[in-house]
């Protein structure tokens, strides 16, 4: 253990009973730099001001209580080291404020019921098996159980909900935590409502196609649940496995995108919109009223592009292929020729051990 050092915690205070606006308050703490921001907050409570409110319990990143924003980044206070937090601090003061996208109740405590738990409830978060259970256990592949263990590892801390950029613009978005929870059932071979679940989440305008792929949830998740990866897997299950053509054009957009890259190597913007509306088909999309409407709506953007020289009529209409487009096609062939889709689940195989050749088989756990 290193020696104790001085740190300044700049904490966002709010007491609804005081009639005062939310404000920052600085506290000095003295702790081993390897201790956590939560330890720092607890020292403030213990020594200086016990009215400072934060939910916390396990101190070990398993109960999911202490989600906050530290120097603007959503995280659990208990598994963020003071020394690390200091490195991203502005003017040396570690800023701690309540999580985003949820209403603040007091100091660092937010109303998770109003947002997080409502969204969890939305995804029908319980197993729906077919008929009566078997006499013994359900027999299912070992990999399937390890696979859903990644979303099972979610501790419902709400840190991803706090960091989600889509939620910021669309508060109705089901969001990363709840969709990861949804995958826990979609990926579970015991569940009998896979297609219904996927159709529901694809058709919901705030469902799986509302995610903008920003990676924020993956970056902040303290448990490596990788919510966005789970959302992408929900999409692949919906499109590739069930061919669900949704009214949000998620299917068409994805198929259009993939086909365009296969053909040209880079994105052909002019083709993407009609293809998205036409379930991936250019011909079908051109006659879709929705596509025409959106095309008209996007004209001002197109004009601005033309004016600034970002778009030229030639580039827009005659999209050039990549010079080595053959190689792109080769990649597509590789993937298409596989017997089954490979989902890289870093929960099972760490980044370090990807290259390590099968250290051990899918062990039974008996030893």
């Amino acid at each position: 253990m290193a020696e104790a050092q001085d740190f300044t915690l700049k904490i966002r205070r709010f007491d609804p009973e005081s009639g005062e606006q939310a404000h920052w308050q600085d506290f000095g703490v003295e702790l081993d730099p390897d201790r956590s921001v939560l330890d720092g907050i607890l020292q403030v409570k213990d020594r200086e001001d016990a009215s400072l409110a934060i939910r916390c319990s396990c101190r070990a990143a398993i109960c999911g209580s202490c989600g906050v924003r530290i120097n603007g980044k959503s995280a659990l206070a208990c598994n963020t080291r003071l020394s690390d937090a200091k490195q991203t601090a502005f003017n040396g003061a570690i800023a701690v404020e309540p999580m985003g996208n949820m209403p603040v109740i007091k100091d660092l405590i937010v109303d998770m019921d109003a947002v997080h738990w409502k969204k969890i409830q939305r995804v029908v978060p319980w197993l729906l098996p077919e008929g009566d259970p078997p006499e013994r256990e359900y027999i299912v592949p070992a990999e399937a159980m390890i696979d859903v263990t990644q979303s099972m590892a979610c501790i419902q801390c709400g840190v991803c909900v706090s960091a989600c950029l889509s939620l910021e613009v669309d508060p109705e978005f089901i969001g990363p935590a709840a969709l990861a929870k949804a995958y826990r059932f979609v990926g579970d071979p015991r569940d009998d409502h896979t297609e219904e679940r996927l159709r529901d989440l694809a058709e919901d305008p705030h469902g799986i196609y509302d995610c903008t792929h920003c990676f924020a949830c993956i970056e902040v998740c303290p448990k490596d649940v990788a919510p966005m990866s789970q959302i992408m897997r929900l999409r692949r299950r919906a499109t590739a496995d069930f061919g669900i053509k949704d009214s949000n054009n998620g299917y068409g957009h994805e198929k259009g995108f993939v086909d365009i890259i296969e053909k040209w190597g880079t994105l052909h913007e002019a083709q993407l919109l009609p293809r998205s509306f036409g379930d991936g088909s250019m011909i079908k999309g051109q006659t879709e009223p929705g596509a025409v409407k959106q095309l008209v709506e996007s004209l001002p953007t197109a004009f601005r592009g033309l004016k600034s020289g970002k778009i030229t009529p030639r580039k827009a209409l005659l999209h050039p292929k990549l010079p080595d487009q053959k190689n792109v096609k080769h990649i597509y062939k590789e993937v298409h020729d596989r017997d089954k889709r490979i989902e890289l689940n870093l929960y099972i195989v760490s980044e370090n051990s990807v290259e390590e050749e099968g250290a051990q088989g899918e062990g039974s756990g008996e030893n």
Partner: protein
Amino acid sequence: MPHHDVLVIGAGLAGQRAALSAAEQGANVGIISKVHPVRSHSNAAQGGINAALDPEDSWESHAFDTVKGSDYLGDQDAIEIMCREAPDELLELEHLGVTFHRDETGHLGKRAFGGASAARTYYVADITGQAILHVLYEQLMKHDVVHRYEEWFTTALVQDEEGKVSGAVTRNIRDGSMELFAAKSVILATGGNGQVFNPTTNALVCTGDAIAMAYRIGAPLMDMEMIQYHPTTLAGLGLLITEGARGEGAHLYNAGGERFMEKYAPNKMELASRDVVSRAEQTEINEGRGFPDGTVALDITVVPRKRIHEALREILNVGRDFAGVDITKEPIHIKPGNHYAMGGVKSDTDGLTSIPGLYAVGECACVSVHGGNRLGANSLLDTLIFGRRAGAHAGKRSKGSPMPQPSRASLDDEEARIRAIFDRERSGRRVSEIKAELGATMDEKCSVYRDEEGLREALEVVTRLREEAKVATVDDRGTIFNQDLLGALELQFMIDNAETILVSAIERKESRGAQYRTDFPDRNDDDWLKHITVQPNGDGEAPEIEYSEVTMTQWEPEERTY
């Protein structure tokens, strides 16, 4: 006044299981918890759940291991029930959706655990408790028949004139309002009292609330001296490294590189029962063979890396985030640390306590299935089996009986008690200071090795702290999320726990299970093969001590070696 046929206090595994099971009986059920249910400390149970499900295994073998693990202090009738019902309970959890690990044939896979004669621990990576807790909460969300009071703090139990429990007084943490609940039955399920010790693997919420509340209304507490020190906790922080690590093959070494368990448990080695391993480690450390930071080393690098990633994932994170150690590459320093209370509110195999209408299940209860020492992966089982049984019993019992009308006086009393806390002069010690002294004292004097002198010193300290706690300074006078007030109330609960632990530990003049008395180093079946129970003495003086017999069915005490 909110009223329920069955009111469950605490929403970890025991509480949720009890609530679901009472609801299955058609009872109107309420469940109160001071934290959101999924924040409960059942989350921390990493390694797994024991069940003799394999046809080659038998419940008798599981029961014998448990009896032996308990150092023959466990009640064998209760142990038999728990071990017999374990396979069905496990299968039911599987059917509800718990993502238990499978073997290569797709059947449930299992791992080895300490003190067990067969591999019978079923698991979800090393998040078994979390996985089960979340699946039970899914069921609560699904059925919506159980009324949930999330973030409500129970301050006291309420009795009618005849002494029967008729409800509870609670504080809604979110708005500070006080509420009197009426209930035909109250099931206590608030978990353990690890926060009485520092360090501890237990979460900050584990303050022994129900143990103290039941004690205050005269319910006897049993086996309170039996406090488990887990062999593998991080020094300083006290965080848990699952026994699953040793179950997967990890070794223990002293600073000289010696695999010291050879000396203490030549057959089971690292997988001897927890009291044995913790004592071995403490002996190594006390005799100067530990590391300078008062630890020994746990070497998990012998477990294949892929297996660590799929089965010990949480430990990988704990090592990285809290000790700065990559467990796949180097040993991690550990020591014995406070982990589990075998004792608690004396209850029978349906969870009934000595007070009519009051049940206790899970860690706050003492059935007693763990006796002097709990086996790893038996605690989840205990919570589920007895949670279910108590819920069913209370649910059935409620049919046809009238709803009690608890007197408002108890609510007035509790409101006055809280007002008095707010009215305190701000001249007392801080709650945090008293708590810190309590934890350090208990860890110093009442841990792996104990003696009369140390225990009596600790009791003197606790007696002083009790007075200091009565006037401890509270900063926060607010109503919304006043955690300071809750801390002051919890501190008084913890002091009741500490006192009863110490009084029981002083009383037991022998060494058995987790209680090792250096002044009485041998097990003494002639005089001490019995439970110690404590209850409050009417005049507020030291607790009254009584004894109760250990129930034996088919296993006579033998010498205990591993």
